[in-house]
């Protein structure tokens, strides 16, 4: 598998770097030389960007709080519950009772879709992210 060019997530500089994949695992990062920002080098965070991807601490199943404890569940159960609860609160509170926090670490497409979801589905403009933090 050839190296895959992508964009670093560790700051606003936006370096171009290649992820090295082996047997389904990302084993390294290397800067793009031609990329206008990275120009052949990355900072220490970029060089070690791949390290968290396969961390054993990654969440790998949805969790639902049952009797006060977060308990593994299926995706369907978690999504159904989320949809039901959001709808219930929306019905009870109108456009005031729900809020959404988007993320400066998510992609543009995800942010776009999340604000569309907020405005078109939840019917509220209560959406923000930590732009100022």
């Amino acid at each position: 598998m050839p190296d895959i060019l992508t964009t670093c997530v560790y700051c606003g500089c936006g370096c171009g770097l290649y992820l090295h994949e082996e047997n389904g695992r990302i084993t390294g990062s290397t800067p793009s030389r031609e990329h206008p920002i990275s120009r052949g080098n990355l900072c220490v965070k970029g060089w070690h960007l791949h390290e968290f991807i396969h961390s054993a601490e990654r969440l790998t199943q949805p969790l639902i709080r049952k009797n006060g404890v977060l308990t593994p569940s299926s995706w369907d159960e978690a999504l159904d519950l989320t949809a039901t609860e959001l709808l219930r609160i929306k019905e009870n509170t109108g456009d005031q009772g729900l809020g959404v926090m988007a993320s400066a670490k998510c992609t543009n497409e995800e942010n776009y879709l999340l604000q569309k979801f907020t405005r078109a589905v939840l019917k509220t403009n209560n959406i923000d992210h930590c732009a100022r933090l």
Partner: protein
Amino acid sequence: MTNSINEIENAEVILVTGSNTTEAHPQVARRMFDAVDRGAKLIVIDPRRTPLAAMAHLHLPLHPGTDIPLLNGMMRIILDENLIDDLFIEMRTENYHALRDLLFRLDLDEVVRITGVPLDTISQAARLYARTQKAVICYCLGITQHICGTENVQTLANLAMMTGHVEKEDTGVDPLRGQNNVQGACDMGSLPNVFPSYQPVSNEDYREKFEKAWQTSLSGTPGLTLLDMTHGGADGAIRGLFIMGENPMLSDPVLSKVKETLTGLDFLVVVDLFMTDTAKLAHVVLPAASFAEKTGTFTNSERRVQMVRRAIPPIPGCKTDLEIIMNLSRRMGYPMEYDSPAEVMEEIALLTPIYGGMHHDRLENSWGLQWPCWDRQHPGTPFLHKYFFTRGRGHFVPASHQSPSEPMDATYPFQLMTGRIYHQYHTGTMSRKGTLLNRENGEALLQIHPDDAGRDNIRHGEMIILASRRGEIRVKAEVSDQVAPGTLYTTFHFSEAPINLLTTGARDPKANCPEYKICAARVEKIRQGP
């Protein structure tokens, strides 16, 4: 940023203020070093002697929160020595007289007293900046995270406009954006008052446009800001929160208040890669895919929209945020079906004028495009404000000094500043999983000046108590003359030392940005034994 990152290396004078560039924006710092090697002069305004300040030609170590009087002082000297750009002011700006009136009333002795910077240094900086042709100002959260953040930025703009240092290549005022896609999240309308491309929700025409596109009715009432939501949820009106990839339980000020708010909700959903402090409070936690497992775009600090490419399929059990949102909206009776992120981008291009020419196929075969990019033929915009300001003429908004929100007193005699360090990123959920990054810098350190440390007999490397009027944490002391006597500095990356238990909830009323850079604090030794 109005300029591109690469323009910085061509500048002749670089004024850096409120930015620890070498640690927070290494690639920008790299351009600054290059510029210095080519003969550029570097001016750093920072209360701390940061690595960049240490190698600067001029370092102005001002007292925290005194940016406005310092910059006004520089402008007064520029005015007195007639180093202003009359032609630029005449042709391109308005309201200059208001600034001039303010500057004429300014007492430079008072400036020296407030800022703690010698007049001679201020004059040198003023002359250096004003006399050059190509001058760039880079600023970051050290400017904005104050109750007068908006005024700080306006004052920087005043300085740049009065000397004509805008609207040109290699010259301008550049805010460095902290997080990787903070620019994009704003552009995409993840804000309470605007649709994508900063089109106000309160404006009927824009609302109609989005209602037509999305085929549904939309609210015209601006929503709540982040701090409104996490600090009391607008007095309890908020009953449910959906949090995607954020960790307010570490990143937001006055964490006790955030915790009270989040635990008081009827329903909290957190979508994240890891079990964050916020996720621990959730009713439902959904495991998301990381950047390596999805395709999309990020917009960097210089407005460059570039591809993020999927290198591996999502880790078994995880879903991309797009899938999660589509799944939810389908269940909630408003199906949003997109075959690919590229299809989402096509809709973005349709509704977001500054992204009008952004399509994945174009981005795929380039190093990205800088907005505004109006249509498919548009090459993108490396620097903004080339011929005219977005709002027409540049408007001078003079400002005067505002004291920080929280005064020091005998109990809390220190000014505590917070910021970032090189090896960690934001709340550390990702960077702290990296073994090497964590080895290099794996715990919170509180910088304290040797004089202050000596007075309290605090040793380098000792765990001490750091307290503010809102709480206390334990943190390791780093005795360092990077900070001035009477000031402290630490970071917010570490959940073991959640500094935002201490920071103040005061914020800039215009931008809603919390005053992370100053709160009153005290330190004390941990008493041994019972």
